[in-house]
Every structure is written in C-alpha cells, then in structure tokens.
C-alpha cells in the first residue's frame, strides 16, 4: 500500500494554542480515510494546512508525484491544487453569481488549455455528479444538497489525486446523505483517494476502510471503523470522562 | 424589440444634444467678437480673475470710444474658462475657436495653460495675445501666438543688473546669492535666466534649489537658505508660497536682500497678507502700472485710474498686459477692415505702435512684434512703497527712486 500523502511531526499553533501537535499521518492510494474528532480537535486546521491556506509551523507534508514524494509544506493553495489536492469548505463556497457550469468550468481550466475544452470537461463532470438538471442555474439559487454536490464536482474537475472533504454530509437529510455517499464511492472508484472529515458516524462506518481520530491536535487512535468506535479513549474524548463502555454506540 | 428601440433612441438623443449644444447661428455682422481664455477656476483662478477684469475694461473702453471705426462695429468679449487643467484648456480653446467666430483671442496668463493651446491656435489660424512669460512660447515656430510681455529669461537679467546697480550705488558689498524657485514652467525658465546672469555678473551662487509648489511649510527651505549663508535671495514663486517664505524668514530672522521674481511678490494678495511689512520688498515685474511710459501719457494714466476705480486696487502685473492685448486685437481688426482672423493676424505682425498710441502702455513705450511673435520689451523692477508697487528701475522707466532705507533692516 503506497501512501499518497504523508505528514511527519506536523505542527501548527495559533497564539499558543496547539491546533496540530506532531502529527504523523499517512493516506494510502485509492483509500477513503475517515478523520473524526470532537469539535476543536484540529480537523479543519489539518485540512487548511494540507491545502496551503495555513502555513505549518514546522514538520513536513509530502505528496506522491510521478517523481516520487515531494514536500509541499508551505506552498500556496493554488500550487497545492495544481499538484493534485482538491478540497471542499465546511460552509460551501460556490461562486454565487455564476451558473453551475461556469463554477465547474473555472476548476476544469486548471488542466484544460482552452475555454471550450474546459466547458466540455465541466459538462462531463456535472453529469457524473448528477447535477445535469441544474447546469445553467445560478449557484446562489441552489439548495444545500446541490451546493455541496457542486463543491464536490468542482474539486473533481481539477483531476485531483486526493480529495479533502470537510463535513460534506453536514445538514443533509438521510435520503440526501444516501445519494451523497453513493457519489463519494463512485468518485473513489475512479482511483481518487479521499480524506473524509465527518461527524456522522453512520457515513464514516459505511464509507471508510480506515479511520483516524484527532483530539486536541494529536493523533488519538487509528484503525478500522469498528476498532476505533470501541476504543475507550475515543469514547472518553467524545463523551467526556465518567462514561463506561456500553457496547455498540447507537448512530 | 421594444427594449432595442429604446436603446437606439437614447443614443440618438445623446448625439443630437451634443450637436445642438453649440451650433448657434453667426451673429449680425455689426459685432466683432474677441475671445477670452483664462483660468477662472482651479489653482490659477486668482490670476485669471485679474485678466478678466482687464479684458472687460478694455472692451468697455473700446466701445465707449466708438468701437471698431473701420467696421462701425461694437466689440463683444466671449469668455471661456480654461480652468487650471491643461486638457480642459485645450477643450475650451477648441470650443472657442470652432463654435464662436472670434477675430482674435486673449489667453492665457499661465505658461502651462498657454502651451497646450498653441497647436490649436495654429490649426485654426486665430491670433492669440498671451501675457505668460515662458521662453518656449515664442521659440517653437508658432506664427499665430503674440507674446506681449518680456520673457522669463529676461527677468534674471533685469534682477541681476538691478542688484549690481544698487550693490555699487550703496556699496552693499554682497556677493553670495541663493536662487530658490517653484518647480513649474514659470519657475524653471525664470530661475535659469537668473543663474546664467548671476554667474556672469560675478555673483557666487551658493544655492540653486527648486521646491514643490504649494508646499505646506517653508521651514526646510528657509533653513537651507540660512545655512547656505546667502546674502541675496532670488525667490521665484506665486502668492501662496511667497507669503509663506517671507513670513518664515521673518520668524527665523533670516534677512538676505530679497529680489523677488515677479508674480507672488507683486500681486495685491501679498500686500493684504503682509500688511505694512510688504513695504521695501523689491521684485521684477513683466509690467507695472506706474512705469514712466504710462505716467507721462495722460490717456494711459486714465486707464490705470479707471481700473482702480472699477476694481478697487492698483492695476496688476496680469491686468496691464491683458488690457493691452485686447486693445491690440481691436487695433488690428480696425486696420484689417475685417474680423477674419488670418487678416487680423497679418495686421498684428505689422503693428508698430509708439508714443501717443496704445503701444505706450507697455514699457519702454512701444509695441512691435518680432517674426517669432514676441514683443520686444523688457521687465522693470518695482519696490513696494506705501503698499503699492512703484517702478524703480531701469531709469528710463522709473518714476520713483529706490528707497534704500529698507536695506538697513
């Protein structure tokens, strides 16, 4: 299992608060890695540091490229994207006054040389993501599910090797979550590794082959979803001290 | 379709408005129009206002004495505000020359506004009389520009000669000179004149310093003057900076002999600003109301008195030449028997007006334009005495002698 992304003693603190503390994390090729942890555990910071929006204090981030592992720590977001890492934002950030097609075309332009080719690619991606019927609607008039789907679709359009999904499922009803998970596994089948940051345990268990847990910026646990869910430390971190283990935590 | 029609309608409306604005019909032949182009707004508005007063008086005087006799026509002044912006001045000139049939025009008193107008004047072959002093105005081969006043480079000559005159006469023994000038067309051309002459006259130029016009504090400038040890100061500035320099020098008791470079050191505003402290101040001037060529001719004196009565202040350095400019154009129209600008220009080039005519209004007492369009004249030196600038040099033009009592101070 060759890893596509590795961090070695990754550190980031904001004014004394250690958001990330000596993190060594590996994401393997083609896997869907779940990343869970209570609020404020550093999940979003981790995504922001990997995607270049925050500069790491120290430590290394290396990404698999055709010429072997390359250190991408400290690169600006645009470079990180061109190396092949796409991301979505916790609160979706579409280009509001543009249509869905225009939104995705912007992303497709990273790899496609001309505007018409980018548009064609974008149309293709839109169909793939099931947004066909919304192609010419303005992003600002899309409901929450379609906005999330648009974020995903835009990320796809830059042909990433790794897709960072930051709480893509938040705010969706069960039916929407079902089709969301379907789309994510469809994306994964195209060989794109996914870092799946989510609170909804059901989705993590269903999609992820492996899960890592962060707490106060450091790695608390790692393993299959089942192992992690039953790990005492994890339960303690989530539910606070004083709770005994009571078998399978209900969804 | 409806929206489309609406849009085409708007565009056509805009175009017709542009056309309608200016195509008024040519007035009855009985009026000769003389254009007036000077800054009535912006930073040079105070100079423009002096020119406007003089031009109005000139037109009044012409009409009171029978207008243009050969055409039996009254004269009308067509006023355009050139503003103090060069681009707008060019548009104003374009508007004046193409939409109003003028026989000639007066404009402008500010070098930086006259030069952008000259190509337009040349294009429409309309004679203009300017009282701005920059040497370039009559050195670029323009044939329809007539410069009534002395040139910037002559200012230096007169200032240095005058200094030598009083330096010898009163044995002042001063040798170290500082030249500070406003970094503008007027400032640069005047300062270069002073520098070349001062060196030739054996003066030691210890400071040759441009300063940004419209500065907020004369402190640094006066400090530089003080540390340069200059005994004579040749400042070239408009009113705002001149007042600041003199006040700050008084405050820092730096008191070299000041020989002003015209404009700011000569206009009424400085006497309002300095009160009686202005008396004794010397300055070069492109024209002064009490030079001998005027005081010895009752008609000329009458003009300056009419000006003072009408506008409540002595006729200023800008007003005199502007008045003369309008009268010269009227004279040329009269001699050309036509208000066709090309004919008027031809007459202007032939003008040779000496004593007894309006030509006496400009020292040394005659008006004659060279091929370059420059009227061969020379600046005069004035000294403020009882809050009025009095001509004290050269002797041929002086009506008052220089009052040395101020030198001791």
């Amino acid at each position: 299992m060759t890893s596509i992304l590795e961090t070695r003693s990754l550190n980031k603190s904001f004014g004394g608060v250690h958001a990330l503390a000596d993190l060594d994390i590996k994401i393997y090729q083609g896997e869907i890695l779940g990343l869970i942890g209570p609020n404020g555990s550093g999940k979003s910071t981790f995504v922001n540091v990997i995607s270049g929006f925050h500069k790491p204090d120290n430590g290394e981030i290396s990404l698999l490229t055709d010429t072997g592992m390359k250190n991408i720590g400290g690169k600006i977001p645009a470079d990180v994207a061109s190396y092949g890492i796409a991301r979505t934002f916790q609160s979706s950030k579409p280009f509001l006054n543009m249509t869905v097609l225009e939104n995705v075309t912007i992303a497709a332009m990273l790899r496609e040389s001309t505007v018409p080719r980018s548009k064609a690619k974008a149309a293709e991606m839109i169909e793939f993501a099931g947004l066909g019927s919304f192609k010419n609607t303005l992003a600002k008039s899309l409901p929450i599910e379609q906005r999330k789907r648009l974020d995903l679709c835009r990320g796809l359009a830059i042909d990433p090797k790794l897709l960072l999904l930051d709480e893509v499922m938040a705010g969706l009803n069960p039916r929407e979550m079902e089709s969301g998970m379907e789309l994510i596994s469809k994306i994964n089948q195209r060989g794109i590794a996914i870092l799946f940051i989510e609170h909804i345990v059901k989705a993590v268990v269903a999609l992820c082959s492996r899960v890592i847990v962060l707490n106060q910026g450091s790695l608390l646990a790692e393993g299959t979803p089942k192992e992690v869910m039953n790990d005492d430390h994890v339960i303690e971190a989530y539910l606070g001290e004083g709770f005994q283990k009571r078998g399978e935590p209900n969804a | 379709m409806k929206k489309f029609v609406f849009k085409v309608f708007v565009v056509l409306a805009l175009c017709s408005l542009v056309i309608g604005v200016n195509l008024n019909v040519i007035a009855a032949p009985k009026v000769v129009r003389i254009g007036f182009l000077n800054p009535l707004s912006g930073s040079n508005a105070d100079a423009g206002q002096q020119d406007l007063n003089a031009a109005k008086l000139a037109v009044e005087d012409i009409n009171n004495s029978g207008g243009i006799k050969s055409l039996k026509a009254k004269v009308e002044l067509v006023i355009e505000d050139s503003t103090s912006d060069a681009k707008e001045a060019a548009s104003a000139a374009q508007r004046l020359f193409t939409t109003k049939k003028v026989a000639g025009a007066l404009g402008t008193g500010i070098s930086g506004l006259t030069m952008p107008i000259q190509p337009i004047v040349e294009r429409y072959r309309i004679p203009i009389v300017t009282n701005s002093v920059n040497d370039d105005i009559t050195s670029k081969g323009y044939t329809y520009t007539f410069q009534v006043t002395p040139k910037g480079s002559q200012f230096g000559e007169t200032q240095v000669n005058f200094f030598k005159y009083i330096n010898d006469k009163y044995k002042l023994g001063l040798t170290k000179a500082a030249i500070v000038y406003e970094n503008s067309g007027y400032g640069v051309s005047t300062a270069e004149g002073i520098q070349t002459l001062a060196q030739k006259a054996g003066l030691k130029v210890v400071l040759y310093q441009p300063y940004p016009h419209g500065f907020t504090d004369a402190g640094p400038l006066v400090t530089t003057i003080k540390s340069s040890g200059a005994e004579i100061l040749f400042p070239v500035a408009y009113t705002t900076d001149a007042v600041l320099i003199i006040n700050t020098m008084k405050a820092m008791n730096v008191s070299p002999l000041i020989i002003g470079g015209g404009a700011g050191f000569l206009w009424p505003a400085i006497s309002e600003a300095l009160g009686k402290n202005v008396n004794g101040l010397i300055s070069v001037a492109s024209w002064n109301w009490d030079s001998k060529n005027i005081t010895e001719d009752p008609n000329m004196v009458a003009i300056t008195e009419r000006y003072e009565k009408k506008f409540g202040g002595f006729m200023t350095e800008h007003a005199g030449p502007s008045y003369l400019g309008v009268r010269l154009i009227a004279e040329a129209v009269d001699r050309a028997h036509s208000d066709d600008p090309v004919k008027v220009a031809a007459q202007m080039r032939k003008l040779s007006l000496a004593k007894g005519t309006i030509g006496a209004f400009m020292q040394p007492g005659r008006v004659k334009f060279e091929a370059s369009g420059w009227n061969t004249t020379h600046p005069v030196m004035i000294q403020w005495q009882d809050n009025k600038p009095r001509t004290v040099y050269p002797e041929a033009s002086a009506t008052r002698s220089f009052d040395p009592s101020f030198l001791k101070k």
Partner: protein
Amino acid sequence: MKNLNISKALPGIFLVIALIFPIFIHHDYVMHISWMIFLFAAMGVGWNLIGGYAGQLSLGHAAFFAVGAYTSALLYANFHLTPLIGGLAGGIVAMVFALLIGYPCFRLRGPFFTLSTIAFAEIVRILLLHFTGFTGGALGVTIPFTGERPLYLQFYSQVPYYYIALAILAAVLVFAFLFERSKTGYYLAAIREDQDAAESLGVKSYRVKLISLLCSAFIVALCGAFFAFVSGYIDPDGVCSIDFSTEIAVIVIIGGIGKLWGPVLGAALIIFLTEATNAYLGSLKGGAGMLLYGILLVVVVLTKPEGIISFFNIGKSKGGESIDDKHIGNAVTE
C-alpha cells in the same frame, strides 16, 4: 459566460452609426468632443480590466497615461520616432511600471490597494518633475504643430482624430470582450466572487491580477501616446495628477463598473456634461461647472450605485454587482 442579454447586433449598429456620423456632422468641435469621449472610454475600458473585473480600485492610472505620453513624446523629441512605434514602446514601458507596482500592491486589499496606487502615481509625477534633464521637468515636452503630418498624428481637421480614437476604442472593446471570455477573465470573476475558493481550485490570484494590470497599463499608455501627439504639449502636473486618475475611475464607476459597455457610457456622459457645464456655466462664475459635476457624482452614488448602465441593462455583468470587497479590513492575504 456568453449570456449577454443584448441582441448581438447592437455593437455592430453602434459601430456603423459611429463610422457614418462624421459624414453628416463633421463640425470640428463635435469631432473634438467625440474623440475625447472615445479616448476616455478606451482608457475606461483599460481601467475596467483591473478596477472592474479584478475588483482592484486604482486611483493611480494617470501614471500609466503619463508613461505612455512621455515615452512616445521623448522618442519623438530625440529620435523623431513616429507615435505609431513610440506608442507601442510607451505601452511596453508602462507594463514594466505595472510590474513594479503590481508585485508589491497585489498583496494589499481594499483601501490599502487604492491608497498605494495614489502613492505610486505621485512618485511618478515627482520623478518626472525632478529629472528635468531627461524629461524637460516642469517645462514639459512640446511636439510642435507644423502642418499636416499624418505620421505624427498632426492634422488640420479633427475628423482624422475622430477615426483614430474610434479605432483605438473599437480595438480595446474587442480585446476586453475576448478578455472577459478568456481564462484570465473567468479567473478574475471567480476571484471577485470568492478568492479563497478560487485559489483552492488552482487559480493563482496574484498572477491573474498582474496579467489584467499589465493589459490595463498597456491600453492606458497607448491612449497617453495618442493624447501627447494630438495635444502637442504635455507636462507632469497635466498628465499625472490625482484629479486625472480619479476622473478615469469615476467615468467607469458612474457608467457601470465591471461591465463591458460601462466605461463607454460613463465617458459619454461625463465628458459631455463637463463640456456642457463649462460651456454654459464656466463664464458665469468660476467653479459653477465643477459644482454641478460634484452634485451629479453624489446623486449617482446615492441613487444608482451599480452605475448608469444598469438602466440600460446592456451586457449583464458576469459576477459582482458593485465593487463588493469582502476583505475590507485586513490589508494582506494570509
């Protein structure tokens, strides 16, 4: 992006009207006003590339105008070079200046960028004044008018200037039309919508803004060269003043910022109104014309912030309505 909701024919119709207009009306003053409108419109379209599409409000574009004017005028004064080449040289020199200001200034946002463009233009003006030996300093540069010299853009009649200015405007509009639809155009719209989201998709906002500034500088410099030869005299305070930079910006903002036709409409309105007020009110009392201009400015801002163009709904903008800059407070991108 092509959802301009005007009929495709309208630009063609405007061009035809403009081409035949001088046949019917060729009074020199009307021609003068027209080429002034075309010139300011072309500069406005140039300014709009950075001010509208990239949302970077510059109040220092007179610096590029001055660089274009001075380069072409000095090339003429020293080597008798025709402005057809001198103008291009001016454009290139202006692009170099754009690199100088672009690199440092694009890390700034909101009022800080605007203030730094003011400082940049003032520095250019002061240097033009200071190096008298090279630029003629305060004495300025004269290009004497010595009769009909087409190679040096000198004509007796104003009609040729009308057509040259029209050609410049048409070329600039076509460029802007294609620019809007180019990758850079899309990227600029994306940046204006949400710079973080755009950067996460690989958009190098700094490089894209620099490209739009380079194009903008080239266009405005070209207009500077044209103006230098038509007016025959340029001086630092005339071509590089704060008031002039502000006028270019005001024309686009009033006409409709971020919209292809905004600058054209703004130029027509402002130039026409300034001329009309100066023609009728100028001689009345100094300042009356400008007072009306000030009142118009305030009224437009308070009643119709998106600019006059929204009345006509020509060329719906792709992206931001007005200059909505969300990162107002902090000066620097993280």
